[in-house]
């Protein structure tokens, strides 16, 4: 029997507001343990939370970018459970009246575009971190409350995803959108972007949902895809063997490449949600929503279409360039100075990205600013340098941070376009290679390429290749 998977993702993203969700403490990552804390985020007796307006604003931005309906009235609830990294033993979250609902985003996998529904977007607070110290009697745990109370958005998808590749594409797209909005750092390795997956399988064509498991602890895009691939295979094997999938929460073990049961349905927590009495419900003003909407940046899909329509870029190029806001900004800036978009795109997708990746840098922190990239392309276009030399110049600019013109001048890389000077070198090359000249005259066209190469070699690549060709043909 052929099976298909049904996957929904619950994504948590830490918002990069300056202060925490309900107190004035900084949200900065790192810091000595328990230094970014106050009575409120430590949950001391008597304290009260106060919602940070920026958290709502970032939530609104995200909800609107994900095409959600913002609810005119939402409230906070308490999610009650005991865990030592949660000082109040309840988390302030949103239960039945979230910030926004009913959105979608679009993914493209294998050239196929799919619309994935978003069930809801809600605000909540993060917990602290436990650090286990081994020792006799099982050791002990230390708690770092720096992260406690950092604002999170939970973004829940509809069970619209069908393959691990789609799940990964969804997650990557979501990350791109969050980065365009500048609301989150989205660093999976630091935990500022986290994802749990609900997975079930069913015979292809069936409309009935199978029993699902929830998979946790996937800390990279790759882990997400691998974990889902494993879990889907596991569930299919259970069904094929005549068994039933057990409803459970699974954890992904990256090292062993397997999922294992964390807890079964019987052990599931009863969170005893109820409305948070310390916060008043939020009535979000329509004007505020419109103001936030008007302030949204151009989003990846729109930008991608613009690059295709306005510049005639191939869809693939446009997709790569708009996968990062910083890269797309870089592209736009270069094109504004050097309006041949295809040339710019080739350079950015080729040497520029290669050098960036090798240096482990983000486009925004490139040592070659867009102005200098445009200047480099201009030098090539004017014929001051050849394409080959331009690549060398770019590497030098990357390594030293110097401008294009300066590198070309310092290294004496200006193209030789002086016919008199080149004619002399051509004469020398012809005199030194009588056999090759003979071959050419006997109809071997390839011989010309060799001779051009010799001239280029003699000029350390600086000769204007068009002029060399012309001069050689004249003399032969």
């Amino acid at each position, binding site marked *: 029997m052929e099976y298909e998977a049904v996957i929904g993702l619950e994504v948590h993203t830490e918002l990069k507001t300056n202060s925490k969700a309900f107190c004035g403490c900084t949200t900065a990552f790192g810091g000595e343990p328990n230094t970014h804390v106050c009575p409120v985020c430590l949950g001391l007796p008597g304290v009260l939370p106060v919602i940070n307006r920026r958290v709502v604003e970032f939530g609104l931005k995200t909800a609107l970018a994900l095409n959600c309906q913002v609810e005119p009235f939402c409230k906070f609830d308490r999610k*009650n459970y005991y865990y030592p990294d949660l000082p109040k033993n309840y988390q302030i979250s949103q239960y039945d009246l979230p910030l926004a609902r009913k959105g979608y985003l679009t993914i493209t996998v294998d050239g196929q575009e799919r619309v994935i529904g978003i069930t809801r977007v809600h605000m909540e607070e993060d917990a602290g971190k436990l650090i286990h110290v081994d020792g006799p009697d099982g050791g002990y745990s230390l708690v770092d409350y720096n992260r406690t109370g950092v604002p999170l958005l939970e973004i829940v998808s509809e069970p619209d995803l069908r393959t691990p590749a789609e799940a990964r594409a969804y997650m990557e797209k979501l990350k791109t959108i969050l980065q365009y909005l500048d609301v989150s750092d989205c660093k999976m390795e630091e935990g500022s972007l986290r994802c749990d997956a609900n997975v079930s399988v069913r015979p292809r064509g069936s409309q009935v949902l199978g029993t699902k498991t929830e998979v946790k602890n996937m800390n990279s895009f790759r882990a997400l895809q691998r974990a889902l691939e494993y879990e889907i295979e596991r569930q299919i094997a259970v069904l094929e063997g005549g068994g039933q999938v057990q409803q459970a929460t699974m954890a992904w073990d990256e090292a062993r490449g397997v999922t294992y049961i964390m807890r079964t349905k019987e052990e599931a927590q009863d969170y005893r949600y109820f409305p948070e009495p310390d916060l008043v419900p939020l009535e979000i003003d329509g004007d505020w929503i419109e103001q936030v909407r008007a302030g949204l940046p151009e989003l990846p899909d729109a930008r991608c279409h613009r690059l295709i329509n306005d510049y005639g870029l191939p869809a693939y190029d446009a997709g790569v360039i708009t996968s990062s806001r910083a890269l797309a900004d870089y592209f736009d800036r270069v094109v504004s100075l050097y309006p041949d978009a295809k040339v710019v795109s080739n350079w950015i997708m080729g040497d520029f990205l290669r050098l960036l990746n090798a240096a482990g840098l983000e486009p925004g922190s490139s040592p070659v600013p867009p102005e200098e990239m445009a200047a480099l392309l201009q030098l090539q276009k004017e014929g001051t340098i050849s394409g080959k030399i331009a690549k060398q110049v770019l590497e030098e600019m990357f390594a030293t941070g110097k401008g294009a013109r300066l590198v070309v001048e310092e290294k004496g890389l200006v193209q030789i376009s002086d016919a008199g000077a080149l004619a002399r070198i051509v004469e020398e090359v012809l005199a030194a290679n009588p056999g090759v000249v003979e071959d050419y005259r006997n109809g071997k066209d390839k011989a010309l390429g060799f001779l051009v190469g010799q001239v280029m070699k003699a000029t350390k690549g600086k000769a204007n290749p068009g002029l060399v060709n012309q001069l050689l043909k004249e003399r032969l």
Partner: protein
Amino acid sequence: MDLHYLTAHELGGLLQHREVSAVEATEALIDRIEALDGRVQAYLTRTAEQALEQARAVDAARARGEEPGPLAGVPMALKDNLCTEGVRTTCASRILGDWVPPYDAAVVRRLKAAGAVILGKLNMDEFAMGSSTENSGFFPTRNPWDLERVPGGSSGGSVAAVAAGEAVYALGSDTGGSIRQPASFCGVVGLKPTYGRVSRYGLVAFASSLDQIGPITRDVTDCALVLGAIAGHDPFDSTAADLPVPDYRAALKPGIKGLKVGVPREYFGAGMEPEVEAVIRRAIAKLEELGAICEETSLPHTEYALPAYYLVAPAEASSNLARYDGVGFGLRVPGRDIIEMYMNTRSQGFGPEVKRRIMLGTYALSSGYYDAYYLKALQVRTLIRRDFETAFTKYDLLATPTSPTVAFRLGERAGDPLAMYLSDLCTIPINMAGLPALSLPCGFSQGLPVGLQLIGKAFDEVTLLQAAYTFEQSTTYHRRRPELGVA
């Protein structure tokens, strides 16, 4: 002169005219506490040194020619669920151990800014859960009018201290009657302001949607004075209303001619002591005599208030008290693992009434029971609120007994939680509706004080205080003092 029985406005006047110094007043109160508190047992923590320091600062300010205000230098005390920076705050619970808050509650900050002299922290039912102060994790407080009787609760220590002259005034908290019922039992004035009138920041939460801090004083003028000092918006409490604070004291003008007062018949039900009812009826007659138009009315959902309260309040409490787990602060009783540490700490740290309410609340919020209990209780709450809204379309105030009985004997109801809960029958509906209400002395039954409860419209404490003031000006009950056998 007996400084300890002066009201705040009387003592404040003497201080402002430099007839008495703040240090003298403070020393008088410290002496009084020394002499009496062994028997009354109102205080859990005394801060005599700090009080004298605060008094000296006020005297120094006045010596410099500054006038720090009418409460500056007046010795007072705080219920021990109000956080005080550097001074242990116990909520009368073993579970807090010797926890010392690193911050002041908003009301404490305001009082300190007004020059208050803080004598110490007062006993209460553990986490404000109770009506007799017998649920204190340390010891019960006695009623100054009869040391064999309870002072009421949960603000029993606050009320006993004010009644016994061990503090000029005190702050209490009121979740279901915890200021008003003991005020009634001990013959003082106790006000529960409108929910949102006073910041709750730094009040250790019992039931967040019901809790409110209020003054406990020996007369209505002090009540107005103290309310004015603690009321107002606070950016640290989202539920504190951003409304202007009237000058409550200046608004105290006698005269209630034409004031429409409703008397809900449901508040005179079974379980009410006939003699208490007689005192209340006489007090209502007195209001009429003073020009008010009193008539019987009905708040039909009153009987559901108590059961609904005992779902809402424990539900919130079960969550609010989850933080006492031995991890970050307070008592920790070790165990083999974290779960056992939680269980040991909470089993040993909480008293039986607190455990009972945590269990009730946990149950009420549980999956499968939420709709039948918690949600239903919220719906009842809406009905109760509507009862009052309807009544207030006709009346300016409502008048009821504060408690169906006078103070009962120590131990009399301790074994019977339901009998104890009934003590708050007349006060709970007001918290459920979030309205302001005060209890003021209106007579005696069996030689024990009886309190009249006046209930006002939301944020209309002015009308409430005016009516209470008018009544007080034509009676002398508030001037009677318990015989405590000391000068």
